[in-house]
């Protein structure tokens, strides 16, 4: 089924009228309620009344992750705090996390777009869903929960982790849908086999996987291991969380809910729009959000877009799977990791920053492993093993505290980390995504 057929299958012209109406209301709302945006709009020479159609969006200034960090915590909010019902945070590039807040209407919007997401993947109202995305500050678990609630599915909110219990619940309740990260799906399948459970046995129909990049080869592996259709979901907490775009059963691009999240694909260097089918940075404007609406938010995800009508009947544009990033962010077990966060920790411990490298690896059917190599320098070298081990453990604990991801820290000899053009190569990603 299609949850909101009137907008998801609307003619392009109808959709543009809707988008224009939303934008015409959004800009004055932000201008009058958010001093930071007021300034940004004035700097860009945009008067709020001059925005009359969705085509005017090109005149609006971009919003970046740095804007969110610089105005932490409440600077980019347009709604007063007493109207904020829920907040979520994700890791920021350095220091401050990224904070997002939802009004009651925003939560209703989240439920709506997640219900659309679930339907787009193929969910039916009498389905049972096991939500194995983390519940908490991470938007994955609760986003799926609100959508499933809106749709009236039977929800098993297992959250992530505790694999043996997840498998027991699967056997007992035989859900037809699962939501989790793709690497966790593979990990659970492997654990199941080790426990003598055949993951293919059950009522599986659909998996909705996201929060980290994954390829078609992983898709085939998951579909084979679980005997289910593996679909891709896209979202980011700055926009709403999961529920920005979702693959339908044809698995031919992710339908972006463009009546509320207006997409543009730009050349990240020039900021100019690129043609459909060409790779560029995905930029999203939240047309109807109230708490923390964002204008032309630079996602830093590289995708291409197709505006052709899909075989499923939806007219909403489709974005490709994420093809890369414009920055050096990597996603590990659903968590965003920036090298700058690790730099920050090392500077904090040692006063200056030693050379380091992050190595991300994934053994077959295992979760991602992160190893941080740190070059030993004379100023913190000791002849005593216990001091070196203490140093290594301190670095490990502090990085883990910042990233919320378990890491291994290895001390290495100086000049052993590869340097390109005088700068160290900060990330080595050995995973087959």
């Amino acid at each position, binding site marked *: 089924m299609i949850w909101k057929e009137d907008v998801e299958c609307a003619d392009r012209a109808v959709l543009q009228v809707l988008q224009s109406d939303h934008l015409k209301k959004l800009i004055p709302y932000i201008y009058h309620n958010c001093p930071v945006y007021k300034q940004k709009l004035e700097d860009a020479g945009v008067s709020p009344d001059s925005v009359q159609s969705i085509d005017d969006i090109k005149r609006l200034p971009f919003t970046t992750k740095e804007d969110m960090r610089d105005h932490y915590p409440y600077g980019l909010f347009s709604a007063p705090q007493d109207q904020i019902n829920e907040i979520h945070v994700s890791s920021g590039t350095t220091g401050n996390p990224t904070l997002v807040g939802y009004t009651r209407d925003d939560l209703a919007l989240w439920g709506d777009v997640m219900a659309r997401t679930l339907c787009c993947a193929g969910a039916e109202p009498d389905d049972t869903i096991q939500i194995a995305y983390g519940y908490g500050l991470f938007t994955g678990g609760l986003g799926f929960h609100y959508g499933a609630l809106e749709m009236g599915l039977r929800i098993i909110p297992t959250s992530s982790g505790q694999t043996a219990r997840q498998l027991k619940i699967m056997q007992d309740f035989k859900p037809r849908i699962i939501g989790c990260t793709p690497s966790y799906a593979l990990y659970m399948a492997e654990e199941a086999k080790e426990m003598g459970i055949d993951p293919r046995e059950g009522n599986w129909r659909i998996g909705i996987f996201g929060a980290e990049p994954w390829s078609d080869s992983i898709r085939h592996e998951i579909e084979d291991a679980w005997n289910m259709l593996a679909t891709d979901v896209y979202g980011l907490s700055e926009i709403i969380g999961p529920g920005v775009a979702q693959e339908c059963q044809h698995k031919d691009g992710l339908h972006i809910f463009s009546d509320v999240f207006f997409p543009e694909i730009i050349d990240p260097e020039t900021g100019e729009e690129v043609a459909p089918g060409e790779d560029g940075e995905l930029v999203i404007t939240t047309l109807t959000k109230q708490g923390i609406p964002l204008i032309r938010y630079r996602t830093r995800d590289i995708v291409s877009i197709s505006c052709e009508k899909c075989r499923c009947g939806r007219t909403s544009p489709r974005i490709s799977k994420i093809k890369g990033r414009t920055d050096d962010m990597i996603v590990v077990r659903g968590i965003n990791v920036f090298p700058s966060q690790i730099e920050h920790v090392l500077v904090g411990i040692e006063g200056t920053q030693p050379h380091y490298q992050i190595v991300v690896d994934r053994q077959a059917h295992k979760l991602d492993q992160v190893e941080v190599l740190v070059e030993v320098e*004379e100023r913190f*070298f000791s*002849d*005593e*093993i216990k001091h*070196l*081990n203490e140093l290594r453990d301190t670095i490990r604990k502090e990085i883990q505290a910042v990233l919320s991801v378990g890491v291994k820290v290895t001390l290495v*000899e100086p*000049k052993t980390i590869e340097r390109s053009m005088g700068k160290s190569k900060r990330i080595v990603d050995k995973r087959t995504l």
Partner: protein
Amino acid sequence: MKITQISVFLENRKGRLYEVCSLLGDNDINIRALTVAETESFGVLRIVVDKSDAAVTLLRDSGFVANFTDVVAIEVGDRPGGLASVLKIFAANDVNIEYMYGFVEKHSDKALLVFRFEDADFAQQVLAKHSISVVTRKEIEGL
């Protein structure tokens, strides 16, 4: 009297110890005592050589992390209970040993051991009080 130990950080990689030793050998630096403390991913090489300053400069120039550590070289009787008699004095006087190892060659008819104390100055006072003979820097250089 304290002598100088050189400590070198080594990754657990094939041939790494050989590289340090051949570097010193090629430059006519003689290793008097040596031990390696290892963990699963790295080790610390501890050596006493005849030309400490030259050795550290050489190692650093070759990209190694190396520094000086004060240690004490002690002669103990080369007979059953020889080491125990010295350790007994340390224990009775609250002298903490971080680690210790033996010399490659003998200085006299006694065994020569390197001690890294938690507090080298305090250890030396105790040694002097109990008339335990320590080896001087000059003697190491001349070995």
